[in-house]
């Protein structure tokens, strides 16, 4: 009942007024966000020698050359010849853990999503990598045949209804002026809506004090749609990530972000 009264009050003030106050909340939380702490920890992990080869990730090629972090996140997802597939930041980091450090896939992917008391190595590393793309224009791969195929698959998945509730991404992200409780729902197949979204992941989520990544976000959307859990770094999740990032390409990367 309180929520209804609040909505009524907010509606009377006009949608613009409500929106600007949420923007103020988002701006002030972003300015006072602990997200950089995750980048700091990520740096330590990036430099830490690990695995049977006892080497760090410092020579990892994220698409701009071995060890080049600057602007790499903003150019993902994209095709990598050495793996002959399209990869996003997290799958590429995982690839480097195996290829460079000699770690087994099983060990490296044992705990990819953490929690507030114990974030995962991947979460710290993703924040660190993403931080090096601040202000860089987002240019995911869209030209290579495999990138085009991934985009097409992601697009198809976006509209595909399935699962116990017959949901698709468009159930939440396909109509204008929708919200879930007090969170606005962006229409993600529209470039103007997608741009600020893709530019602010990974993000520190204040509601659970955790650094959340795009792989997590897609995984959790599938959970919320009551569909089977996708595998980490699966073709489907990368295709969706590429579809969303390509739809929202062109803006300056504004992360790692801070969200509710």
């Amino acid at each position, binding site marked *: 009942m*309180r*929520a209804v009264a*609040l909505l009524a009050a*907010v509606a009377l003030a006009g949608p613009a007024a*409500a929106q600007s*106050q*949420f923007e*103020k*909340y*988002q701006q*002030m*939380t972003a*300015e*006072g966000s602990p997200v950089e702490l995750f980048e700091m920890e990520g740096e330590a992990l990036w430099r830490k020698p690990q695995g049977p080869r006892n080497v760090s990730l410092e020579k990892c090629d994220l698409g701009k050359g071995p060890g080049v972090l600057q602007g790499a996140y903003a150019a993902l997802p994209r095709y990598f010849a050495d793996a002959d597939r399209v990869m996003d930041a997290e799958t590429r980091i995982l690839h480097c853990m195996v290829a460079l450090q000699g770690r087994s896939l099983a060990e490296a992917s044992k705990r990819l999503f953490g929690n507030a008391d114990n974030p995962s190595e991947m979460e710290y590393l993703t924040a660190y990598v993403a931080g090096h793309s601040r202000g860089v224009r987002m240019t995911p791969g869209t030209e290579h045949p495999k990138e085009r195929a991934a985009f097409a698959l992601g697009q198809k998945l976006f509209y595909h209804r399935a699962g116990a509730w017959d949901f698709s991404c468009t159930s939440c992200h396909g109509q204008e002026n929708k919200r*879930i*409780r*007090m*969170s606005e729902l962006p229409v993600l197949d529209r470039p103007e809506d997608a741009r600020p979204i893709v530019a602010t992941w990974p993000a520190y989520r*204040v*509601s659970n*004090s955790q650094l959340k990544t795009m792989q997590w976000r897609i995984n*959790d959307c599938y*959970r*919320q749609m009551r569909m089977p859990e996708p595998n980490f770094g699966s073709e489907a999740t990368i295709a969706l990530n590429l579809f969303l990032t390509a739809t929202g390409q062109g803006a300056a990367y504004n992360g790692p972000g801070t969200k*509710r």
Partner: protein
Amino acid sequence: MNGVRRKLLALLAAGVLNPIAAWAATWNKDAFSAKNAGDALKNLGAASPQPSGDIVIEAPQIAENGAVVPIEITSRIPNTTSIAVLVDKNPYPLVGRFDFKEGALPFLKVNAKMGETSEVRVVASAGGRHYVATKEIKVTIGGCGG
């Protein structure tokens, strides 16, 4: 400065106490355990502050989540030496109290937890007198709860 702290600092200066023990002792348990703003302020020695337009509270009107509510405070009252922040409807309203010595400006930005929509109460102390300003912040919740 309250009497307890003054005494502890004197003992510290005399080399009697170790720094951490002295420091640990100066936390106003009574003020922080108070279940309403009035009692908290009484325990801070700032019982009847007078309303002032010179305390600026910059905060969003609506917080998308109560776990982190950003609050920025500037006191324009000359010689402000202390600022206390309270959330009236929190189980324990007192969020924090900061003392500003020479070299510090009476300015603070803090992220507070708010359990529900409430008045945020800011009390500034200057020259032994206390002043108050309030601002209501609505607390909502977003998303699917995931």
